[in-house]
């Protein structure tokens, strides 16, 4: 497996964004890697690219099924502003992970994979098994909702 396909720090970050919880992300990472190591030892490791990410994604979705689910709300959406970068800089990575992990799937997977800055859009479509139109909608909506959340969280920054 090439190094990019098994970029393990990025795999951990992906799990963290999907679950918003460091302990759970570690658990999923460990389980996924153990499974991969056993399969590799038996010579049964799937040759499909990004198998680790696909496997970790399903495990994350499975793990979060038992969690408390966020209420289905119509979230506010705002246009992206030039001040967004400074608003984001005030965030903690864990806050962002909690926000992304609360998003419904496939938006959650789309945002987590996209913001890893590890894959191009074709690879994301492959890993998340999405169509281009769905990925596009998830990302666009995600940005606008995140902007609305940032505006609510740091109202001062958007006016500067």
């Amino acid at each position: 497996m090439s190094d990019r396909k098994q970029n393990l720090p990025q795999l951990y970050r992906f799990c963290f964004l999907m679950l918003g919880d460091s302990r759970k992300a570690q658990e999923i990472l460990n389980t996924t890697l153990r499974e991969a190591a056993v399969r590799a030892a038996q010579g049964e490791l799937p040759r499909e690219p990004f198998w680790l990410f696909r496997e970790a994604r399903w495990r994350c979705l499975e793990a979060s099924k038992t969690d408390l689910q966020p209420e289905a709300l119509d979230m506010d959406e705002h246009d992206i502003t030039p001040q967004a970068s400074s608003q984001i800089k005030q965030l903690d990575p864990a806050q962002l992970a909690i926000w992304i992990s609360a998003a419904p799937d496939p938006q959650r997977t789309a945002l987590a994979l996209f913001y890893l800055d590890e894959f191009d859009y074709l690879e994301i479509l492959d890993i998340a098994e999405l169509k281009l139109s769905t990925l596009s909608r998830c990302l666009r909506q995600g940005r606008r909702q995140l902007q609305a959340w940032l505006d609510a969280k740091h109202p001062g920054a958007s006016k500067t």
Partner: protein
Amino acid sequence: MRTLGLLRRRRALLNCAPISHDRVADRSMRAAVSRGDGSDEFVNQQNFDRAIAELVHLVPIPPESAEWFAEKDAIRVPKWTWRKIVLNPAVLAISSAVVVIAGIFAFHLVGQLNDFPGSATARKLLTVAGSTRSVMLDPVSAEAGTLSDLFFMKHGLEHYDVPDEFADFQTFGCRVFDDDESQRIAQIWVGEKRMQFFLFPAERDGKTGAVLAFPGWRYVRQEGWVGAVTEHNGVCFMAALQGREKDLEPYLSKPKE
């Protein structure tokens, strides 16, 4: 409609535009990015994405998980070695089958290379030689070469001549019989190494009826018996004994007197 579809696709691609420019995957994405590059909306989107990606890269890796990253080879696909390939049951089964098929093919090929007109009859007669007992023959004590006259006079068999190489051997007995193809076969038993001689009609061309001649001596083997066969005047002569070709060779190379 087509233009609307194209615009929609370009918009969709722009929403998925890569954060790092080195991840522009294909031509359509490159085209969409170059068209959207100047717009405020796209610039804002790119800055927004870049800031989020930078934040994601700040996600700390817990030391417990970092242990995995040190073991780089933990999830390495085991490499196929020649030994592994050879010991693979499927490969073993296929190679054994190929060896057996090749062996059978080679056996048939070698058999066919040694074939000559009349070789099938000669082999059958070697089986006859193995099962013949002396009591089955009419006792005749003479030189083998003189039996041609007997075969002609008594049985009407023309050219059933014993070649010069074997003409001097003393006989114990002889007989004439029909084989399963109703061919007249003459069989002679001689004292020398308990050898047996057979005379039988040479094979003929099915269409023209011409004798299928072959030069010199040819060997046939069957069930521990070996025969040296030659053809002359449309009749084949075979000297047979229990043993190997080298046991017959001295007689065949003996110069004619």
